[in-house]
């Protein structure tokens, strides 16, 4: 399988200040021609990263590079500076190859610092750099986009992280945005192991009937993920259950349910000191099962790679988010 990111040769590089789009495109072609001829140009998307701070952009680009050769993409990094006193575009291009089974795979990063009036028309700046026939994923690290964001028309998918949502109002905006365009949430991907774990507790003829008889739901955790997880449980199991949300450092979930006169408890508790979750189901006077989940790496590269693998509208997330907003 693929190696981790390995730089097959020195990155080829070009930068310019106050340059036109056509100059940047010419330089891009020149660099590609000069680069290692053996490198495969398999590419699966254009990823546009919109960052307001240097730190956000650096973190996002590092995460993308951290994916190695799994999502060979053209990476376009946008740094809008609308309040700059001058207008223009400063650009920097880097061309890399990573290695997959000793087979070099080529990718490129174009960083565009857009100063002044161009910031109002970022779509017109990005469009010339998008790859034909491939999805354009627009990612907003560190913030959630406004419904009216001018870059959204070029996006086939919008990548967000609801963990960044400070206020309920921004989540409500996201519900609206999701109606217009597929939105993929990194926080939702981070919760995937939890969702799989909780769903698994109800598998099989013995435990499944209890899913219809859940009477109370307790969710502990940090604000955003806690709310989203509770929203998911309610949207799947049906509203009208007792829901308790508690602030805690780590996520824990406990469900009490009954079926045909029997009561059962389903719970998943994150250990305080380790990245492990102990989960189990127990029917009073009946069978019980337990399991241990080792939580996967929670790096940005991991959640990003999962998100980029599932670039499609997710109705379950949309419904969970809508209910989460209503939880207050």
């Amino acid at each position, binding site marked *: 399988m693929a190696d981790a990111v390995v730089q097959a040769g020195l990155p080829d590089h070009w930068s310019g200040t106050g340059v036109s789009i056509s100059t940047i495109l010419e330089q891009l072609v020149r660099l590609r021609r000069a680069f290692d001829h053996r490198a495969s140009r398999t590419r699966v998307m254009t990823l546009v990263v919109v960052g307001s701070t240097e730190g956000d952009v650096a973190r996002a680009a590092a995460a993308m590079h951290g994916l190695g050769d*799994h999502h060979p993409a053209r990476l376009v990094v946008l740094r809008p500076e609308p309040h700059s006193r001058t207008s223009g575009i400063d650009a920097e291009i880097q061309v890399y190859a990573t290695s*997959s089974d000793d087979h070099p795979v080529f990718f490129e990063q174009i960083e565009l610092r857009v100063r002044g009036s161009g910031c109002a028309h970022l779509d017109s700046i990005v469009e010339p750099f998008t790859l034909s026939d491939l999805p354009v994923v627009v990612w907003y690290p560190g913030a959630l986009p406004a419904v009216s964001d001018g870059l959204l028309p070029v996006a086939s998918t919008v990548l967000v992280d609801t963990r960044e949502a400070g206020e309920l109002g921004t989540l409500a905006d996201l519900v609206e945005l999701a109606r217009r365009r597929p939105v993929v949430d990194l926080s939702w991907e981070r919760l995937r192991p939890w969702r799989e*774990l909780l769903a698994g507790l109800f598998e*099989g003829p013995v435990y499944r009937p209890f899913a219809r008889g859940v009477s109370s739901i307790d969710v502990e955790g940090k604000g955003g993920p806690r709310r989203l997880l509770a929203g998911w449980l309610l949207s799947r199991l*049906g509203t009208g259950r007792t829901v308790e949300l508690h602030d805690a450092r780590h996520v824990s979930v406990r469900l009490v349910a009954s079926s045909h006169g029997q009561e059962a408890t389903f719970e998943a508790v994150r250990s305080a000191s380790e990245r492990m979750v102990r989960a189990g189901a127990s029917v009073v006077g009946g069978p*019980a099962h337990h*399991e241990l989940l080792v939580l996967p790496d929670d790096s940005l590269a991991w959640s990003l790679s999962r998100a980029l693998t*599932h670039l499609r509208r997710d109705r379950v997330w949309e419904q969970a988010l809508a209910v989460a907003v209503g939880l207050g």
Partner: protein
Amino acid sequence: MREDEEREDKDMADGGDGVNPLAEGLTRERRAPPGVLVVFGASGDLTARKLMPALERLSRRRMLPPAFAVVGVARTEMDDESFRQAMRAAVPDAGPAWTELVKGFRYVAGEYAHPDTFSALAQVLSDLDDQRGTGGNRTFYLATLPTVFEEVARGLGAVGLNKAPGQVSPVRLVIEKPFGRDLDSARQLDQGLHEFFDEDQIYRIDHYLGKETVQNVLALRFANAIFEPVWNRRYVDHVQITVAESLGVEHRGGFYETAGALRDIVQNHVMQVLALTLMEPPATVDAQGIRDEKVKALRAVGILTPDQVLGDVVRAQYDTGWSEGEQVNGYRDEEGVDPHSSTETYIAMRLEVDNWRWAAVPVFLRTGKRLPKRLTEVALQFHRVPHLPFVASEARGLHPNAMILRIQPDEGISLRFGAKVPGQAFEVRDVLMDFSYGSAFLEEPPDAYERLLLDAMVGDPTLFIRSDEVDQAWQIVDPLIDAWASGEAPVARYAAGTWGPRQADQLIQREGRQWRTP
């Protein structure tokens, strides 16, 4: 009645197998249902080397349910705890989730011929249903010698374990190749198994089908409009399938003497790859759709007459030679091998396919040990262009187009075509357009055993071999066994580390073609 109660009653009426509302949207990741995996031959090499690591990966990928247990059955005397220790040791780099899972493993010691073994197993399974909620769902995996397959099936049938309690949950029997030594013994084995298990309960494993890139042959052919139109006699000149191994027989000389390349590779792996390459598009990509078409493709393969076996098949053995920088023994000098052995370590053969799509397109197969590298590929060599409008000197480096499906290693697809060499002269040369499978997808493909084990537990037989496929593959291979038994066909020799004997080159060259050098 409340809506919840109505749904609950429906779940019960369905055997409790209604929809899990929390699983919606997570269905892409398949998960085994609650149940028990019973491994016969649990103290053996296959269990420790393949099955437990595959189970551990399934556990790590969260594809096993919490209500899951493994019961090991074998002749070796040991208790539950010793078995658990052995299974923990089988996956030394496993994490705490595996340690937790292994705590629930059970073990039954006993002879497969003794009814007490199966009574004890029935009791353990019943206890697990009560304690863990495994719901009567059982998968019996026979990691044993093929000689005891029928004995185990009989033992299970005698205590009613061939059917689930109340006949609600599925019960499956998984067996590993070889499925017989020839057509007669394969049919006899089937008959023995079918006394106790229906065909849809039997899962015959050929781990080659579990390889992601073998399955990708289906995706390539039937998910793309551009390949299928040229996938026929009108455009394809011939097909080459190569299954090459760089290793010798290692420490399996004794086993290999009884099998040879024909039984070890051709009857199963090669026939499966051949069927996937030649088959017609199925109406649906499911177990019946795919397996029906594979059988039809194998039925169209011409059965060789004794004369054709002599003319169109080359069998050979490796001599001493150099492999991967080291001098290596010849086959007859290997441990456990008869110094006068005639067992083949290499086969090259020419087959014809008698159907509308492939008439007059020869298929050349070759497989061997101690070849220069380990690889499996299918190459479709296309016809030459009807007229080449260049002077000969301009197209010296040009060969007919070819599409190569690389199955292992470096999985991917290459397309060879001609392109103009930059410059003032009009010179045309071959170029290779290369797609590397691993470079476009994030997901680490599952190991073949991992995939097939999960499929068996989920109840998806698509990648398992049906009885009629096994039968048809033996019908193609049996004439070779018969002809070789008569001693008429010579055993050619090739130096280890080469692509086979010169007779194999002559086989393909007599029609003006040549083997690819992969």
